[in-house]
């Protein structure tokens, strides 16, 4: 692709098109003068100005002029290349010119928008344009890099977002591998009791989806598996997945439950948030998928018939196998949806609320289990310490959220609504109970959300106190809640039988290693970062990765499902392409100059560069290279030269700009 040196010497016919951008540019830069001055500049064959270059007539003018004047280099002096470079490249293509002969000289963001002195701004615009003329003279024709796509997707996480994404991608007609690290799919949503604002049962609406996913012919469901590593690039990932030994053959297990009865090991039940107990061999919950028992080796007496072996003895189906080993599954996929979910902020972090000390101070998810018909109390509201029905419950919102000083600065978004739901459900189940909510302000911005909150206040007589809680402690049988009512400005002291803390939603702890291995971009709170906060909300900055659900930030179920479907649609976009097009402005290596020092390898954020040990030079995977130029800047020998951004071009630009 590199043209011989002699080709560069041939004088190019360059056309310059200066844009007014309405008055955005022309009010500060004398655009006519820019076009006029450049008319006689060496190499410039044609020069003009126009009010909107990006408009249809503007583009047509460029196309016509290219053909008419046989131009082989174009400079559009207009806005930032991030906005309209593609537009003008397309125009060039239509005119039969290689799109990489288009240069954008930014005289708006970098000139007219930041200056007021017309004379100086015009001078600056002329310098900017001249520098691009210098660069355009050395631009080469480039062809996009093309690569095949593996039309299979990997979805990491089997919560509602992962399930939705997997199903949508599969329904588009592509194969999906769904990996879940827990014994069953279902995620956090399966633990919820009812869902706002409709109060329909969470399990009832999720289990059909779970069944559908498990039966879908194009979904390969890998529960109790973890993604070990991902290599490759968009369209061509290689994934290693670790199968954790379940010690129970899921194809043989008939769920008779005899093993569970004889197991002597009692363990806090994760599904019930530790409010009840399970055995070491267990099924997480009745509707778990796949429907099989799982032996938790960590709590088992030792997977050894000499030490215990009771479960194996009673299993008629011979499904239990203590000798199962970890295995690695390898898969090839083209796109990866990351739906790894969230965790609740630990109550330990808010020592003043006593969540660690007092059994009757619970977090929102624990209260969901207490409300749930499948929960430890069978759906009756009973407090954990003594099983009594609490006659008063205080709900504290924003526990760790919206606290710039000590905890999370962001709003966890769902707590206002689920607290209203909790208080409402409690009032339904304990009609003579008192529900008190401490809040900063109620954020009920969603479809039917505010109506739901008002229902809690007006119909279910939930008492809302605007203010924060400072301290919760126990006196005798009661919890004492100290807070402030900021509407009256008075301190409040409330006695309660139970307290529910709406803990902040935070990044999922268990997947941080995985995210590091994926090298996927995260924000300062550890949530996945989207490629653009408004225009590319479900894509990662890392090509081929898509985001769904609360791994990206706090959100409710409708929003999670919408995002999962959007991610699936984006995967569909990718798979619909015959081949992937990659920008050719990458940084290859000149073998003759490369000394194999490897500095560029350490600079490369995309792992695109590796050392060829035999030849002692660096080789580049052009598909992975994003053309950031970090290596080119670092290369001490000049072997790394970015296409159409070579050192020569940059120096020419500098010379053109600095010459009076």
């Amino acid at each position, binding site marked *: 692709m590199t043209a011989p040196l002699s080709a560069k010497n041939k004088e190019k016919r360059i056309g310059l098109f200066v844009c007014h951008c309405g008055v955005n540019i022309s009010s500060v830069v004398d655009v006519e003068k820019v076009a006029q001055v450049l008319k006689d500049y060496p190499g410039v064959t044609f020069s003009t100005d126009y009010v909107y270059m990006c408009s249809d007539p503007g583009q047509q003018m460029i196309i016509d002029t290219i053909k008419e004047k046989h131009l082989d280099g174009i400079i559009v002096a207009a806005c930032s290349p991030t906005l309209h470079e593609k537009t003008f490249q397309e125009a060039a293509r239509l005119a039969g010119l290689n799109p990489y002969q288009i240069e954008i000289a930014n005289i708006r963001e970098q000139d007219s928008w930041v200056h007021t002195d017309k004379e100086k701004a015009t001078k600056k615009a002329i310098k900017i344009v001249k520098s691009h003329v210098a660069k355009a003279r050395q631009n080469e024709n480039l062809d996009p890099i093309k690569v095949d796509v593996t039309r299979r997707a990997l979805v990491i996480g089997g919560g509602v977002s992962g399930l939705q994404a997997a199903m949508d991608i599969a329904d588009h007609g592509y194969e999906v591998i769904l990996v879940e690290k827990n014994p069953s799919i279902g995620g956090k949503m399966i633990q919820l009791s009812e869902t706002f604002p409709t109060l329909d049962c969470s399990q009832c609406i999720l289990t059909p989806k779970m069944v559908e996913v498990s039966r879908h012919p194009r979904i390969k469901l890998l529960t109790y598996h973890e993604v070990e590593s991902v290599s490759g690039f968009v369209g061509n990932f290689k994934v290693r997945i670790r199968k954790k030994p379940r010690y129970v053959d899921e194809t043989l297990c008939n769920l008779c439950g005899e093993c569970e009865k004889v197991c002597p090991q009692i363990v806090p039940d994760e599904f019930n948030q530790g409010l009840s107990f399970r055995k070491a061999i267990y099924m997480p919950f009745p509707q778990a998928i796949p429907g099989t028992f799982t032996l938790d080796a960590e709590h088992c007496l030792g997977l050894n018939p000499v030490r215990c072996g009771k479960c194996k003895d009673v299993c008629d189906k011979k499904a239990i196998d203590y000798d199962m080993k970890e295995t690695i599954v390898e898969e090839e996929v083209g796109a990866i949806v990351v739906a790894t979910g969230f965790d609740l902020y630990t109550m330990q972090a808010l020592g*003043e609320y*006593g969540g660690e*000390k007092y059994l009757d101070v619970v977090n929102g998810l624990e209260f969901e289990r207490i409300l749930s018909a499948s929960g430890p109390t069978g759906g009756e509201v009973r407090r954990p310490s003594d099983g009594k029905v609490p006659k008063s419950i205080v709900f504290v919102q924003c526990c760790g959220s919206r606290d710039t000083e000590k905890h999370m600065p962001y709003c966890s978004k769902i707590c206002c609504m689920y607290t209203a739901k909790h208080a409402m459900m409690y009032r339904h189940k304990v009609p003579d109970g008192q529900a008190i909510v401490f809040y900063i302000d109620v954020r009920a911005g969603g479809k039917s959300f505010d109506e739901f909150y008002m229902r809690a206040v007006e119909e279910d007589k939930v008492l809302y106190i605007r203010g924060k809680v400072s*301290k919760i402690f*126990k006196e005798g049988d009661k919890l*004492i809640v100290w807070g402030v009512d900021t509407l009256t400005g008075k301190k409040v002291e409330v006695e309660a039988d139970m307290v529910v803390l709406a803990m902040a939603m935070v990044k999922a702890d268990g997947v941080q290693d995985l995210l590091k291995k994926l090298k996927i971009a995260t924000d300062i709170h550890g949530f996945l970062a989207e490629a653009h906060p408004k225009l590319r909300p479900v894509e990662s900055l890392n090509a081929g990765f898509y985001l769904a659900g609360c791994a990206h930030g706090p959100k409710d179920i409708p929003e999670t499902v919408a995002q999962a479907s959007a991610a699936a649609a984006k995967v569909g976009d990718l798979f619909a392409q015959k081949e992937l097009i990659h920008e050719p402005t990458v940084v290859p290596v000149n073998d003759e100059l490369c000394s194999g020092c490897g500095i560029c390898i350490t600079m490369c954020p995309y792992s695109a560069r590796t050392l060829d040990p035999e030849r002692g030079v660096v080789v580049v995977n052009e598909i992975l290279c994003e053309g950031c130029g970090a290596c080119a800047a670092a290369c001490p020998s000049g072997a790394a030269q970015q296409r159409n951004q070579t050192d020569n071009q940059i120096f020419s630009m500098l010379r053109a700009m600095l010459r009076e």
Partner: protein
Amino acid sequence: MKLHYYPGCTLKQKTTALDISTREAMRRLDVELVEPEGWTCCGAEYPLTEEKIVGLAAPIRTLRQVREEGGDVVVTTCSFCYSVLKRANKAIQDDPLKHKRVNAYLRDDIQIDPLTKERTTDFADYNGEVKVLHLLEYLRDTVGYPKIRERITRDFRGLPVAAYYGCRLLRPQKEMAFDEPDSPHVFEDFLEAVGCAAVDYPFKQECCGSYLSVSLPDAATEASYRVLRSAKMNGAKAITVTCPLCFYNMDHRQEAIKAAYLDFSGLPVLFFTQILAWALGVDKELLGLGEHTVPAAALFSERPSTEVRS
């Protein structure tokens, strides 16, 4: 070994019990306490008010003196002194304006001879080099609880004692960086180390009423009552403090508390150093128990330890 020790004014006037017991206890731990020469009042709360830079001169002068005497650590027992010294020190480290102006005051004050008006001695700016530690912090981090356990000769036999932190020891957390203000345990760990049973109660960080003792005595009475009641309700036989003002509000004010709240029948108030000193074998007469309004001597019953602690 020698260790710089800043007693503060109250310990030399109203609350000598805290001073005496500190010295006696530390002697048993082979630490000789040295007072910086010419130390002055820390300024109580006033140096910490935002706009009065000159107030910082008092605590900083003392800290600088510690440095001049070759010390890199100064310990104090009074919570107020601790708070003022530590925060003033941090202000000098963090705020260039305060650093400049306080050093300018001190330079003139220390260099210029009042009679001849001439600059006499050398002066090097104080940059916050001295580390300010509370004695509890020193016992925890430098002496270490295992060593204290080794040296103990008398056993409290699990006497239930409430640790009272008050307001000054822990907050503001970013500046004090001493213990977690919402669920602290340094004081409890100390009590356990000297053979007491630390009583957990919710009012350990609540205010005792502080200076309201002067302007609104009833408010201080109520505040101290709530703390004492909570400690007693949770089974404490005594409450320990680090601060002379807390001691004043809870001990000297206890008659008023009993008069105002008939359900309260009294609770001895001790300094943590009295407990430490007695456990280390210091004579009861040297604990300053005569200063207490609420009789506390009975808690220190002379029963030598039956078992050797390890």
